[in-house]
């Protein structure tokens, strides 16, 4: 039991928590933006995968990590735009548009990867990001070294949380987004461009999702595998509900998931003989349990899932 309380263990665990949570934070923030404007973006898993592949590919080809991240964001934006076209402009079912994009992106990502790399016996790798230690904060006893030695992208994820909160609650754009999400008719009659607002949210959200995916191949690991996203996109969808569509609460959910993920790895390392797979299951089960607790009083954006069409005359 003693080993749990050792500073190194706790520190390591906290560090892992932040690392594992990072892609989920990016993705969750992106999804919150989309859903607040009234669009459920189920393309998230596919967009993250395309982001992961694009980032890896560009970095491999150019040697520049940040260029890889940038391209991943751009690819995410393009896919977000596609989602907007299908579900907002055309008003197709959001469920199906999103799933279509995930399926298409998954195939596309693997296709392009194969095209470029073929099927090598040893998977190609890149030189990943290095972790950065923050000067003062990392000296805090016990939690310092773990929490404040992270990749730059992780620090950016931390910054993203308050930025999102301010955007949604304190800016004019945020009020527009929230109104579009609650009642697009109201927004339209006040002169807000519903389609443009939703499109912007999907595009920016897509960029964030792409970056979240790229984190996994450029920082966390240094190679690209077909299951590199491993369902984290779907977990982000759950985290949005868990956090009641609030950036801070959603991030807390992401941290909890990251904590469990990190804990599970460490417990393996300490020789606990419970099956590896049972551990992997726990984060997902707990997410479901969390959803049960939260779904009762969820404040779903009221127009979520409904396409907005003006010219329909009711009976």
């Amino acid at each position, binding site marked *: 039991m003693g080993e749990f309380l050792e500073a190194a263990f706790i520190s390591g665990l906290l560090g892992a928590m932040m690392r594992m949570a990072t892609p989920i934070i990016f993705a969750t923030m992106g999804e919150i933006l989309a859903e607040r404007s009234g669009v459920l973006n189920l393309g998230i898993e596919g967009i993250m995968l395309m982001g992961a592949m694009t980032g890896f590919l560009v970095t491999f080809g150019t040697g520049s990590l940040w260029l890889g991240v940038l391209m991943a964001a751009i690819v995410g934006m393009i896919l977000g735009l596609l989602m907007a076209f299908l579900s907002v402009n055309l008003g197709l079912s959001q469920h199906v548009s999103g799933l279509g994009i995930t399926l298409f992106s998954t195939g596309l990502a693997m296709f392009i990867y194969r095209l470029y790399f073929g099927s090598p016996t040893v998977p190609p790798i890149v030189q990943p990001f290095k972790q950065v230690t923050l000067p003062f904060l990392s000296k805090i006893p016990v939690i310092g070294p773990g929490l404040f030695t992270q990749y730059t992208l992780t620090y950016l994820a931390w910054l993203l949380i308050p930025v999102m909160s301010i955007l949604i609650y304190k800016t004019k754009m945020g009020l527009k987004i929230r109104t579009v999400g*609650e009642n697009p008719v*109201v*927004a339209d*009659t006040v002169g807000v461009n519903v389609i443009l607002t939703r499109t912007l949210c999907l595009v920016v959200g897509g960029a964030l999702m792409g970056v979240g995916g790229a984190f996994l191949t450029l920082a966390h690991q240094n190679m690209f595998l077909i299951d590199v996203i491993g369902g984290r996109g779907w977990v982000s969808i759950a985290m949005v509900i868990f956090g009641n569509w609030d950036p801070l609460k959603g991030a807390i959910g992401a941290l909890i998931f990251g904590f469990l993920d990190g804990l599970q790895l460490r417990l393996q390392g300490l020789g606990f003989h419970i099956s590896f797979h049972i551990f992997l299951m726990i984060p997902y089960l707990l997410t479901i349990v969390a959803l049960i607790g939260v779904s009762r009083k969820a404040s779903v954006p009221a127009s979520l899932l409904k396409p907005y069409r*003006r010219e329909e005359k*009711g*009976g």
Partner: protein
Amino acid sequence: MSSITKRFLDVTANSDIDFNLYPGEICALLGENGAGKTTLMNILFGYYTCDEGEIFIKGEKAELSAPRDAISRGVGMVRQHFALVPSQTVLENIIIGTDSGKGLFLDLKSAQTKLLRLQKKFGLQVDPDARVWTLSVGEQQKVEILKALYRDVDILIMDEPTAVLAPAETVELFNTLKSMVKEGRSVVFISHKLNEVMEIADRVVVLRGGRVVAGRKTSETSIKELANLMVGRDLLERLEKKKVRPGKPVLEIENLSALNDKKLLTLKGLNLVVRKNEILGMAGISGNGQKELSEALFGMRDTIGGAIKINGEALRSGSPASAIESKMGRIPEDRIDTGLMMDLSVEENLILENHATPEFQRFGMMNFKKIHQFSEDLIGAYSIMTSGRDAVTSSLSGGNLQKVMLARELAGRPTVVVASQPTRGLDVGAMEYIHQRILQEKERGAGVLLISEDLDEIFALSDRITVLYEGVIMGDVPVAEASREQIGLWMSGVTK
């Protein structure tokens, strides 16, 4: 607006309409339901685009493809169903989309100051920090008007504004409109209520069947003339009423209590009796518990106390099946969302409640021969205008949708009929049909509870009249002894 034409799928809502508005006047747009008034104003507001015709605002040609174009030209609209976000505050609802504040950020302080100034000037007091869902309907309408004033509109369109107001609130509204107009602004007042039009408007334009039939100054016309113009014939409904003696109670509501969606107590120990061969008309402005009462009766809302009994047998709370089993015919006020499945065929809607009876199915398999016969019979009996029993229900007009509803609910010769706002939004022809049907049901032997905001309808059909105010019954009087004044007082909560 000149030569405005607007078509939807198979209906021409506006046909070659010319409409002019002058500064500093209140112009009423009069017509019955379906005449095209709201459509025309939606075009002016940019919500719809016209297929033909042109619009000139303050002398300039206006291309309006979205509400924001109309707003930028000084046009504002307050609709029947308020365009407010219930979960947001009054202030947030008013400033959304405006450019208040510096740069990116919301500046709530200065917006609030401006708002309070406007409130004082026009006498529209509402708490800026209150969340809209907590406000009464009258207060919500004030917020809507403030929204328009905040944007400094020159033209304000109001669509049936008094439908949801108590008489006292209507007076307040008219005062507000008069003070707006004194400043040189103009108001378009859409209505089908003749006495109000005569009271508040300077001019009136009458629409019928999508066309302009007349324009008059209110000082130069009369209610009778306007009524004639509006309908094209005598307004008096020809209802054949047979005299029937009411029998024993068939519907008894005892001490019924229920919560509304916000978990507030809305029905407070209600007691009510409807007898066989009788129509009990329940008047009252919406928002006083009618929705909750009808939902409780239909089995769509759990009750927390009391009982509903049909022929002495209590219904199970919150169970539509129980209401159906007890032979209640139910006409919900929201026929589209609650009662009908618009994407299914007419037949599929007609058999919703009896598809599983032994007559129409065996071992889980449906007997289509009998079902087809059933639906064909009903379509004929109720003169439902449709291309056939397989027609998709969304292709039907409002009146025919209600006929489908009636056909389904009355097919089983129910013991009790509960009809909530049955003629809302329907044209006069459909209204007449439905009124006649309701009378027929009463004569057949049903006990009918008619819940309606339309006092004319209540007085025309009921044997007894009662009023629902804030979840409680205010009085109960036979129609022969009832006066509009008395009912109006009860509707405003004044007990004798």
